[in-house]
């Protein structure tokens, strides 16, 4: 056996995977060839060194993420847009159609908010609320009510019987 043949069998020799006959022939060559012997000893050392690269443990979220990918695969919902599209109108809706529909809905919503008549009663603005509060100023209960979060809502405030009574009793 020559040095070139050793190259062919070196890894199997290191793995102990050679037949007895081939192993004897490799051993015979190594006895007389210091270069090949040194090389194969080096391979064995490298093999030992590689053992020190410890494995990692997959994160706890691995399965959950995979499950999500498989779910997406099964349902075909690869993103929120697709899921929304299916929810609104089925798979037939394309992105441009859906975008147009959403834009129209948004436009209507803005228009309603902008141009709808004021739902609050006349004189029930913030200044009126200040007036009411001013009328009960001096009352011991004012401090209590002022700190109630419910007073921030004028609808509730205007229907709040206790305040109405205070208001009417104040000169």
């Amino acid at each position, binding site marked *: 056996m020559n040095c070139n043949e050793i*190259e062919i069998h070196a890894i199997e020799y290191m793995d102990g995977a050679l037949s007895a006959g081939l192993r004897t022939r490799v051993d015979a060559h190594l006895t007389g060839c210091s270069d090949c012997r040194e090389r194969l000893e080096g391979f064995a*050392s490298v093999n030992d*060194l590689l053992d020190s*690269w410890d494995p990692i443990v*997959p994160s706890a979220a691995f399965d959950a993420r995979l499950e999500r990918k498989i779910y997406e695969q099964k349902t075909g919902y690869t993103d929120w847009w697709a899921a929304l599209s299916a929810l609104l109108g089925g798979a037939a809706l394309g992105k441009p159609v859906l975008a147009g529909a959403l834009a129209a809905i948004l436009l209507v919503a803005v228009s309603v908010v902008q141009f709808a008549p004021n739902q609050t009663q006349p004189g029930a603005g913030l200044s009126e609320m200040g007036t009411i509060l001013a009328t009960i100023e001096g009352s011991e209960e004012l401090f209590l009510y002022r700190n109630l979060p419910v007073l921030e809502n004028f609808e509730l405030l205007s229907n709040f019987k206790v305040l109405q009574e205070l208001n009417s009793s104040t000169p």
Partner: protein
Amino acid sequence: MRMDVVAIVTDAELMLRVKDGDDQSFAGLLSRHREPVVNFIYRMVQNRGIAEELAQDVFLRVYRARTNYEPSAKFTTWLYCIATNVALNSSRDGKLSRNTETLDDPESYAARTLRSTDPTVEEEMVARSLGWEIRQAIGALPEKQKTAVILHKYQELDYRQIAAALDCSESAVKSLLFRAYESLRVRLSHLSGGKK
């Protein structure tokens, strides 16, 4: 009880059950191969986050291919063919940020420092230096040599399985391994002496 049943069933049998719609069998395959596949790809890309992401892609491909699965080859051969393709494609696509040390990476200096104070400073430095040099040496190998070494050394695949994963002959695998070990021997020669 369920685990006992899973343990005596071969991978191919489990995969055939998955093919028939049994998702529980897929969970069995996942529990067997999750860690080896993650580690194979981790050693390929040397980044934990990317490795997990790619390993999930591998299992997703396995699941997706369930309907066409035929047990013509060993399941692990098929699995590592997929895993090798995913890892090599990812590398070719340039998705990898190699040798990026983060706190998520258990072998990064920062993570090692934060994780444990048990080993002495000297032991820690030696381990860090050794681990880093091995990673660098393997990372510097050409992709096919690196894949061959990792499949051979860590996944313990035989030459025929590695040949299937790399789509080459068995003799080509032995040649790849020879060249890879020769490069590693030269590169890590200064460490070998202390290891004997």
